[in-house]
């Protein structure tokens, strides 16, 4: 059984890009920390604790982007039966959990210092928590669902992605104490300059993880295909191997 004869079943980019991205992140992350803590002024009202903003906001952006990616990939999976899209939706869905955990940890720390309470039941906090729960359900369904539930999980991801704009507008619909989205727009240039390296580093890290997970999923799909081909066209069925 030589599946390796088909040259790199999982594509070239998923092989060499993650190490490059991880290397980039390894350089950019310390640089951004130095930049944030040593070369950026301390915010007047909130003090040093505002520094967490440089990690909280990029993580939130990345989580949103991943949730939307997962939803779109799942829609493509449903429409075209694309295995690639399915792999992408799995990888992105799982990373929503990881980045979402980052957002949900950094947010309350910031909130505790600024508002005096870690969790204020503010609409955007709640919606982010709900989005995280939706994707947790997605991962649970992918992992524990019976055969055939991958399409159901895809539908779940599409619903989850549709929740993203609702989350975004939740701030405007319910008037809340969360800093409005304009905060980012009116940032002084110095703070913007410190935000980009952090965003870049976290993006590179997330993208590397996404590609690694994508490669794993596509390897698994290729292995499944190979087993199907082997069972259907192979010389003799070997049950003891297939059962594993």
């Amino acid at each position, binding site marked *: 059984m030589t*599946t390796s004869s088909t040259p790199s079943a999982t594509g070239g980019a998923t092989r060499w890009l993650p190490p490059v991205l991880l290397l980039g992140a390894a350089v950019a992350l310390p640089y951004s920390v130095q930049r944030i803590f040593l070369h950026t002024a301390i915010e007047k009202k909130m003090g040093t604790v505002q520094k967490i903003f440089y990690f909280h906001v990029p993580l939130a952006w990345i989580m949103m982007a991943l949730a939307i990616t997962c939803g779109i990939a799942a829609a493509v999976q449903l429409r075209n039966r694309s295995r690639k899209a399915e792999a992408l939706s799995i990888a992105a869905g799982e990373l929503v959990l990881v980045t979402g955990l980052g957002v949900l940890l950094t947010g309350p720390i910031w909130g505790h210092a600024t508002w005096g309470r870690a969790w204020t039941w503010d609409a955007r906090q709640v919606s982010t928590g709900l989005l995280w729960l939706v994707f947790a359900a997605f991962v649970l369904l992918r992992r*524990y669902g*019976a055969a055939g*539930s991958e399409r159901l999980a895809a*539908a779940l991801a599409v619903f*989850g992605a*549709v929740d993203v704009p609702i989350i975004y507008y939740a701030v405007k619909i319910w008037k809340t104490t969360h800093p409005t989205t304009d905060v980012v727009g009116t940032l002084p240039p110095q703070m913007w300059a410190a935000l980009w390296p952090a965003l870049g580093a976290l993006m590179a890290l997330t993208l590397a993880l996404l590609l690694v997970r994508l490669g794993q999923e596509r390897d698994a799909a290729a292995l499944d295909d190979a087993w199907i*081909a082997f069972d259907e066209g192979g010389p003799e069925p070997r049950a003891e191997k297939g059962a594993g």
Partner: protein
Amino acid sequence: MSVPADAALGGLVLAPRRGRAHATNRAVVFRQAWLLARNDLRQELRDLELVLTAAFFTLVVLVMFALAFAALPAAAQVLAVPGMLWLAVAFVGALTLTRIFDREREADTLRAVLTWPVERVAIYFGKLAVSLLVVVGCGALLMPALALLFPTAGVFFERPLEAIALLVLGCVAYCATGTLFAAGLATASGKNVLLSVILYPLTSPALIFALVSTRALLEGHPQFSTYLGQLAAVDLVVLVLASWLFEPVLVGSQRPHGPSPRARRERARVQAERP
């Protein structure tokens, strides 16, 4: 270990129907949905299983609420009553949806229905109508009972039209999502436990809108109609999305069945190697 998508329906090959939905008349879809719903309702009328169990469950939940929150001060009632109403609806809804599709699964009839020359969207709307009828019926039990138990909820009697609109709109959002996922789980051979795992996070935005609107109704908030409009918008989004996803989730998209190109290549290679 993933199994090919086609195996979801036990290897049954369902003919893809590209473009049929565009060609058929909307009236036909409605008629088919009505026929399917009528069939379910007729079956329901014979033993009343769904209606009686759901109503009994509602009653039990109400008794629990009455015992737990008997001496709630008026200010707290405004906050608690919406929660009680929509939690009870969510529980009854999950129960009803599970039961509706369990019934199909026991006799393996969902697969039969899917092979009928019926629009799949009609199946969705037929099931939605039945579950909606049961859940709204339980809501119609809940609202007056809550109004009797908690004086603040007397608004439900004073403004019946608004209360009914609120109940129906909230239940539509819940059942529209629930019908899709309950149907999906029913075809994916078992594990109905996952329905609550999926359903509660997914329907929570709709339930939050319903909660906010209910509180606005209880408080006599001037923005009640705005909230109701937003709830209706959520309904519309959920309905469109769920009816669009129903066919891909239950039978897969219209691309021809069969192994993937890679599997076919691989098989050809294996066959070529054979002596």
